[in-house]
């Protein structure tokens, strides 16, 4: 037993969190949520599409919104051009003649100002957001509206996955997003959601007005709004079959940049303005379990990363030292043993394998309950081999940004 003993508490907590999600998935409210039928009620709805330099994807986003299965006179689509400098304006102009569409142009002020401009321009009962790089399935809105049946529900999130994953990194993110579908579905039943993602989250307009619209929220306006909703005592629901596909970063550099924004936003919001939610008995699962575990996950990710680096470097140096002076022909010849005797059965390995297996189970469950199309094979493989290597990059960068007071731009 060596330094790996440091990892045991984190692995135990990881297994505990996954067990909690599993138990919650099997509980009555989650089963009821899965059984919820898509709705026949059609209140007025506005979908706001904030755009900044989205000329390549905004047309597809608009087309998917226009194809939504919802009465045209009840669905308003508001495109907000937040001072784009590319061809977004011209692309938007192609939809100007559509009676469902409204186009707003404004000076660049950030995503939250674009969404607020959209909210101000509508009187619809429910207001949704859709990032201009995302696409919805036609039945998504009819899955979302019934989730607002309870008056205390202020927001509803959708089931996101990656739009047409074409490389290993995208497949990895797709698996991660589908894992997120399961988590969101489970945690929504215990009021544990702390983010209403940009792709197709909906809000009760009256609550948005009461709470005062979107804020910059450390470049994570969707998280800040969700935390504000939770603090005000409202609920955030999840429509597990409301499928939405989003464009994900296709390079490691872009992915790390995006996730650094998300993670620094989380740390600054949760450990800053919304610190009171951590440990708050009034906020049950969110305060007592989810937020503390989310903070622990960051600490654990960084600790395990440095532990792995330290152990690997130490082992490599020892191996080099031991082999010094021995002919390379011997050193470089592998001496494999496939004897089961040498299987490294350790508590660390088995607990880590258990967390990975449960993660895989959640990915499969997420795909099944959301009926997300596509194959998972490449996603699971890339998730297994890549995810653990990449996550520490943005965790370390995020924490160092927060500690050093570095504020990065959105893009």
């Amino acid at each position, binding site marked *: *037993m060596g330094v790996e003993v440091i990892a045991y508490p984190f692995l*135990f907590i990881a*297994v*505990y969190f996954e*067990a*909690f999600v*599993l*138990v*919650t998935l099997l*509980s009555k*409210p989650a089963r009821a949520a899965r059984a919820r039928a898509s709705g026949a009620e059609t209140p007025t709805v506005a979908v706001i599409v904030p755009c900044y330099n989205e000329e390549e994807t905004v047309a597809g986003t608009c087309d998917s919104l226009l194809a939504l299965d919802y009465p045209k006179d009840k669905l308003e689509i508001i495109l907000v051009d937040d001072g784009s400098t590319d061809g977004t304006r011209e692309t938007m102009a192609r939809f100007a003649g559509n009676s469902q569409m409204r186009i707003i142009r404004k000076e660049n002020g950030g995503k939250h100002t674009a969404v607020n401009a959209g909210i101000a321009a509508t009187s619809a009962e429910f207001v949704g957001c859709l990032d201009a790089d995302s696409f919805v399935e036609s039945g998504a809105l009819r899955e979302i509206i019934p989730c607002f049946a309870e008056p205390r529900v202020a927001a509803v999130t959708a089931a996101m996955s990656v739009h047409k994953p074409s490389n290993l990194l995208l497949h990895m993110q797709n698996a991660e997003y589908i894992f997120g579908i399961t988590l969101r579905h489970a945690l929504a*039943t*215990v009021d544990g959601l702390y983010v209403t993602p940009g792709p197709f989250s909906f809000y009760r307009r009256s609550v948005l007005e009461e709470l005062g619209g979107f804020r910059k929220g450390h470049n994570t306006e969707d998280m800040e709004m969700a935390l504000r909703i939770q603090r005000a005592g409202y609920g955030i629901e999840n429509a597990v079959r409301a499928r939405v596909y989003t464009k994900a970063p296709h390079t490691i550099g872009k992915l790390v940049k995006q996730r650094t924004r998300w993670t620094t936003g989380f740390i600054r919001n949760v450990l800053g303005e919304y610190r009171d939610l951590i440990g708050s008995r009034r906020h*049950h*699962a969110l305060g*007592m*379990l989810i937020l503390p575990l989310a903070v622990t996950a960051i600490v654990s990710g960084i600790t395990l990363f440095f532990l792995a680096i330290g152990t690997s470097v130490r082992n490599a140096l*020892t191996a080099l*030292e*031991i*082999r*010094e*002076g*021995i*002919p390379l*022909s*011997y050193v470089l*010849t592998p001496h494999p043993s496939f004897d089961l*005797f*040498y*299987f*490294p*059965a*350790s*508590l660390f390995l*088995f*607990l880590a394998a*258990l967390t990975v297996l449960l993660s895989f189970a959640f990915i499969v469950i997420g795909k099944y309950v959301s009926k997300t199309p596509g194959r998972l094979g490449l996603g699971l493989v890339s998730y297994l081999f890549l995810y653990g290597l990449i996550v520490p990059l943005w965790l370390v960068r995020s924490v160092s940004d927060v500690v050093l007071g570095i504020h990065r731009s959105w893009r």
Partner: protein
Amino acid sequence: MSLVARNALIALALTIVLTATVVYAVAYLNNARMAELATIEDQISIDTLSLETQFSLLASAPCDSAASSTVLSGELADLGTRLAYAENQLGSDNPQVMRLKYRYSLLEIRDYLLTKQFASACRTKPTAVLYFYSNSGDCPDCDNAGYALSYLRDTYPTLRVYSFDYHLNLGALKTLIAVNKVKDTLPAFIIDGKVSYGFSSLADLEKRFPKGALATSTSLSGR
């Protein structure tokens, strides 16, 4: 009780059950590993005894069984590798590991003595190394020496390497150490009856072997 509290408690119970199952599985696999080692040791013990008996029975032509002795040494080397792995996994303070280590050291000494008897009777000159190491932190060069000996053993299959934990509290080993006057300056080697200490390089270790002892062995260096 609220839904959250109920789920949290069930999840805790589930986590404890899962962790306990994992702990049990690891212990079970380690016990199976120990049992395998014990079985191998038993087999080698029987083989050694058989060889000794054979040696006594064939007093007039003892060299007929020399081949078996070589096979036995190979098995002993494999057992040594397994035992070292088990010790690394379970720790030097594991009582089961220690018990197996005592038996292994005894088997090594018996094989060494048997080899000497065969050599004397058959007029052969087998090359053997008695290597004394320590896992107690007082031998910084032991890992390097152990790897160099593994290289020599793999390269020259007729080379017999007998490794002993210097601090093992075993009467026969203490006697072996006393008879050969091996000091606690580790690593220590007995090559061709001569005691030497320390390890600096493979080349230095090779020089301690009698001239031609390694070269005349079956070399696999070309592989």
